[in-house]
């Protein structure tokens, strides 16, 4: 039989482009480009209903109070403040470099990899907001506080390990985290200022 040498017919691929286009358009429509980013937080566990809240014994100097009212104005440690000043103020508070009496207590702690260091491990940043506070204003405050911690951590990493915090390995990061633990407490909402 002389059929062996016959060529197989070629598949017509001119519609391939159209099919690919269809797929492309389908994916363009059903997917979204935005990747999820955000500020991570851990909420405090719920309080048992029948239990009286024990008065929290926090030394007043260990407490950094940030209040946001319904007009999105900031009150930091009892004085009106602009959002731009918050980061520096928070850093000053967390670090307490000059060991001032009105800033948190410094305790000597032996941290692995870093060694003996005086840290303000009992400090608490308390963030209180009004019911009518705008979400963006709240996030701005959260952001500044996180930024303050991040800057402090970066400074320490640079000093001890010569690298940025993000570039450290896990144990080093843990050590730096021990030196500057993130302590932002979100209180129950109250009404501050602003007549409704």
């Amino acid at each position, binding site marked *: 039989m002389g059929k062996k040498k016959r060529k197989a017919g070629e598949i017509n691929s001119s519609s391939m482009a159209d099919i*690919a286009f269809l797929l492309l358009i389908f*994916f363009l429509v059903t997917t979204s480009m935005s*990747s999820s*980013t955000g500020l991570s937080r851990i909420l405090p566990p719920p309080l048992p209903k029948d239990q009286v809240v024990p008065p929290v014994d926090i030394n007043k100097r260990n407490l950094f109070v940030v209040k946001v009212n319904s007009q999105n104005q900031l009150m930091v440690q009892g004085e009106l403040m602009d959002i731009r000043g918050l980061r520096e103020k928070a850093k000053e508070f967390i670090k307490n470099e000059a060991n001032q009496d009105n800033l948190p207590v410094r305790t000597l702690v032996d941290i692995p990899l870093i060694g003996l260091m005086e840290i303000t491990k009992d400090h608490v940043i308390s963030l209180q907001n009004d019911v009518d506070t705008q*979400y963006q204003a709240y996030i701005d405050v959260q952001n500044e506080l996180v930024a303050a911690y991040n800057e402090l951590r970066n400074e320490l990493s640079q000093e001890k390990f010569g690298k940025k915090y993000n570039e450290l390995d896990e144990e080093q990061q843990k050590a730096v985290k021990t030196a500057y633990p993130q302590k932002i407490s979100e209180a129950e909402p109250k009404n501050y200022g602003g007549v409704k």
Partner: protein
Amino acid sequence: MAQIRKDKDRETPALATSSLPDIIFMFLFFFMAVTTMKEVTFKVRVSPPMATEVTKLENKSLTRYIYVGKPMDQYKKSFGSETRIQLGDAFADVNELEEFIVSERSAMNENDQNLMTVSIKADKDTKMGVINDIKQSLRRAYALKIVYSANKRTAH
């Protein structure tokens, strides 16, 4: 001497389109790689707040989303124009949230249950009162790992 001459009757060859599918496929794979499937169809309008210190969400399969914002125009008639909460594909009330979280968590693998993260995707003009209510019910549901969804703003 070489002669430059113009052939007026010469035809321009047809544009080769054989590589077109490959190019399109490349596009397709690019988009498949960099985009993610939409989680739900939005019924509320959410334009997230801006922040500089944002971190990337690590584990998407363990994340549940709560959308907070004003209803889209086509739902305004039946749901009003006040800030609403969207869970999954439907509008919900704050007191349904606890139940939602509990059922979502029990549907998860046992090892992953305490790793569940709740992402609050709220519009930037939302009043904190709503957010506070959500936070309180999340606390009651023991969903303590939360993320305030925010977009990256370059530092100024």
